[in-house]
């Protein structure tokens, strides 16, 4: 089965739960467990939070976050994009415990890497950031959703 969703929303913290719930609901079209859906919701939450906190530095006025997800049989790809400040040093940003905000733990990219098979970050200062996540699920686990 192939399917695709794409949506955008204002860069508000209140929309993080909306984004992860949408992608989590979309992921139920794949044969996967509830635990795996929770992991999808977690990585979306991390990626969208990054857009709001770091990409737009908590300035929500007229700022947009775009989320897209593609299902291709047992593979799910997720793209989360902002048009904010971008990342100067992607390698440093992806290091465990690194955060540009000292009050945060810097676990976002570590969680994304841990729960997805592939993580790609495309960014340039002033040009926004695009995070692409990919995961292939084992089939025949649908009974876990019953």
């Amino acid at each position: 089965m192939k399917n695709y969703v794409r949506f955008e929303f204002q860069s508000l913290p209140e929309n993080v739960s909306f984004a992860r719930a949408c992608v989590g609901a979309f992921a139920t079209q794949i044969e996967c467990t509830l635990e795996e859906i929770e992991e999808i919701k977690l990585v979306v939450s991390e990626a969208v939070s990054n857009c709001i906190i770091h990409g737009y530095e908590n300035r929500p006025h007229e700022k947009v976050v775009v989320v897209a997800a593609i299902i291709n049989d047992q593979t799910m790809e997720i793209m989360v994009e902002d048009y904010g400040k971008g990342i100067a040093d992607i390698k440093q940003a992806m290091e465990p415990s690194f955060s540009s905000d000292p009050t945060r733990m810097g676990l976002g990219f570590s969680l994304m890497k841990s729960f997805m098979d592939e993580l790609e970050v495309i960014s340039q200062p002033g040009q926004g950031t695009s995070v692409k996540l990919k995961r292939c699920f084992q089939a025949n686990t649908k009974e876990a959703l019953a």
Partner: protein
Amino acid sequence: MEVELKQIRNTLFVRVQGEMDMVVAEKLRQEIDRKLETKKICNLVINLEKVTFIDSSGLGVIIGRYKKIAGWGGKMFIVGARPSVYKILMFSGINRLVPMYNNEQDIINI
């Protein structure tokens, strides 16, 4: 989010309900810190029995409160984390700093 704060002697019990993401984390941080600023609190117990989801923003609030509590020599505990939440707590390494128990009674029995 619903949060219930209850003080018993010098220990603050915080019972959280819902999803601990960046919205909830900020509200929770403010409510706990307001109580901690009274200087009458030494220890902190965070009850996650009714928390259905946690991300790094939620983890950040817990670790931030741990730093405060540890700063004045107090103790902090996490209780009741369900498996999906427990898994994220373990991933973060918080369990190495903050002891985790099944329920509040387990702490009272220590």
